[in-house]
């Protein structure tokens, strides 16, 4: 902040300018008045001789007494002369000039005493570098009559000038002193009332800016604007300090809460982990149980199926038609039961992630499909359905689990035959990209959009499925998982009323499917 921008300068400048103007104004007025007074007084004195003569109509007797005249005109009037028409000095305060001719006095100008054109003269002259005032008045002997005399009076103005000068100095001096005094007083006032206090506030604000909230302005006694500022400062810092305290407390609380929360999260995660492990263990136990039970469930079927078959075939003696039929039913029921158990076993292994493929290389897909085609034909023998094959020649051999591939295709083909009443079922196999694409197309009722996902979910049978009876609802989900286990995919394309095609793609080469025994 430059000085010219300071509050002090702004205020003091105007104060002092006005002060100067006022004091000058007053001073000038006073000086003029005084000066005029002096001049008037001198003029009065200087005109006394003329007045005396006038009132006595030019009779010299009125001013004969030099001493009296001197007293009356005062010390400043240095000379009084009365001059007649002849140019003779009839009277003079300076006796040596009496009787002289005007022309003989060097200090007199003859043109002043022009009886032809008498004029009143009142002017300043300089003699010997001293200033004088002269007054020349023509006097007439009668009222309005001819002029017979001139009265000349001279007064030195040096004194009055000096007096005037003195007054002028006084005026100027007092103005200057007042201005200086005002300047100093103003400065003092500003300093103590404004600079100091404002400066204090500024420096304390700086401290607050740097983070020190402990500063307070002490000892605020006044009640003016700056003390208001000071009090506001204090209260602001106080509030800020309180706010900081509150904030830091809140932070602490937050931190505590956070820690508490973290702790809870850790605890909860631990609990969840334990629960998860428990669930997994339980699941695993169930899966193992299921797996082993499934195996156990199959044991009796060895006897049920095979022994019934032996008898039915007459291996243990002749049987009649009815016996054969009955035993065949036992056999087929047993086989059905076996299928159900196998499905449950498969799905439980799949869900437990424990399904293992029996991988072999050089699987001829066409060979795998042959028995399935045969099965298909037997499934539709009593329906007007044709089994069509579209198997490409020279399909490459693939690596995989032969039985599982057969299982998938058998599942798809049985479904196709089950759900189709008339038309055809097409079994296809061809190469596509680096996979073999198998397909089963039927001319059945098709699958609605909503169902296309549901059919692959375990234990979900669509309405159509349920209506067509016997089944676990596990065939398709198992088939899909088996396809995926081979690194492939199983999906369906279908519209209601336009049949359905199930596709299975099996990669020809899959890295993770290396046979365990080569």
């Amino acid at each position, binding site marked *: 902040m430059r000085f010219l921008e300071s509050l002090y300068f702004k205020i003091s400048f105007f104060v002092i300018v006005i002060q100067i103007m006022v004091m000058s104004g007053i001073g000038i007025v006073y000086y003029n008045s005084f000066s005029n007074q002096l001049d008037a007084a001198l003029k009065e004195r200087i005109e006394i001789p003329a007045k005396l003569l006038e009132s006595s109509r030019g009779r010299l007797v009125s001013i004969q007494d030099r001493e009296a005249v001197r007293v009356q005109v005062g010390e400043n009037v240095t000379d009084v002369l009365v001059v007649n028409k002849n140019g003779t000095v009839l009277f003079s305060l300076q006796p040596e000039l009496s009787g002289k001719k005007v022309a003989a006095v060097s200090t007199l100008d003859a043109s002043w005493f022009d009886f032809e054109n008498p004029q009143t003269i009142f002017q300043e002259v300089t003699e010997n570098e001293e200033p004088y005032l002269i007054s020349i008045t023509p006097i007439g002997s009668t009222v309005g009559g001819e002029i017979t005399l001139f009265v000349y009076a001279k007064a030195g103005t040096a004194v009055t000038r000096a007096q005037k000068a003195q007054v002028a100095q006084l005026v100027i001096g007092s103005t200057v002193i007042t201005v200086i005094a005002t300047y100093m007083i103003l400065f003092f006032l500003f300093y103590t009332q404004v600079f100091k206090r404002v400066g204090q506030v500024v420096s304390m604000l700086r401290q607050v800016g740097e983070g020190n909230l402990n500063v307070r302005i002490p000892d605020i006694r006044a009640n003016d604007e700056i003390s208001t500022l000071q009090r506001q400062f204090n209260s602001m810092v106080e509030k800020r300090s309180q706010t900081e305290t509150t904030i830091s407390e809140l932070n602490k609380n937050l931190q505590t809460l956070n820690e508490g929360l973290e702790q809870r999260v850790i605890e909860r995660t631990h609990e969840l982990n334990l629960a998860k492990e428990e669930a997994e263990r339980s699941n695993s136990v169930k899966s193992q149980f299921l*797996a082993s039970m499934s*195996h156990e469930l199959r044991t009796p079927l*060895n006897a049920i*199926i*095979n022994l019934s078959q*032996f008898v039915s075939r007459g*291996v243990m003696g002749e049987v009649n038609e009815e016996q054969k039929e009955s035993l065949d039913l036992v056999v087929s029921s047993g086989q059905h039961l076996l299928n159900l158990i196998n499905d449950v076993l498969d799905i439980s292994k799949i869900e437990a992630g424990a399904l*293992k493929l*029996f991988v072999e290389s050089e699987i001829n897909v066409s060979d795998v499909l042959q028995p399935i085609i045969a099965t298909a034909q037997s499934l539709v023998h009593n329906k007007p359905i044709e089994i069509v094959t579209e198997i490409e020649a020279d399909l490459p051999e693939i690596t995989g689990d032969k039985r599982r591939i057969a*299982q998938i295709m058998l599942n798809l083909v049985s479904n196709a035959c089950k759900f189709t009443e008339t038309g055809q079922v097409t079994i296809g196999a061809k190469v596509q990209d680096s996979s073999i694409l198998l397909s089963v197309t039927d001319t059945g009722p098709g699958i609605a959009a909503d169902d296309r996902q549901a059919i692959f979910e375990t234990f979900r049978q669509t309405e159509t499925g349920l209506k067509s009876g016997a089944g676990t609802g596990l065939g398709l989900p198992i088939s899909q998982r088996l396809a995926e286990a081979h690194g492939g995919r199983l999906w369906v394309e279908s519209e209601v009323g336009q049949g359905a095609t199930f596709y299975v793609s099996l990669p020809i080469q899959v890295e993770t499917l290396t046979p365990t025994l080569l």
Partner: protein
Amino acid sequence: MKQNIHALIIDDNRTDQMILSRLLSLEGVQVSQIFNPAELEANLQVLDDVDIVFVDLEMPNLNGYEVFQILKQYLGDAVPLVACTVHTSEVNTVRDLGFNSFLGKPLKSNQFSAQFHAIMEGKPVWEFK
């Protein structure tokens, strides 16, 4: 294939023994049976005349794998050793261990003949569905 094939069945389940034995006799095979595998260790000589051995995997006292070790040690690779069990998920282990073939129970009587001949001809059969 020579006549009078002699098969040995090692299985503690009498019903299963009966079924397999019947299937084998239908093929004209002579059948010997061991119900308690502990007997085998004491009577290894019964193996001298055997052309094929069927081993159940789940038996008390000695399980099929231990039996397999004994058989392998005695017979080497001369005779096909067939695992015959309801635990079809063991098929990979069975193959890795060195069994020649695997027949899952329940046995498929319609396919047994073909399977048996294949095994006797040295072709491994892995039937576990």
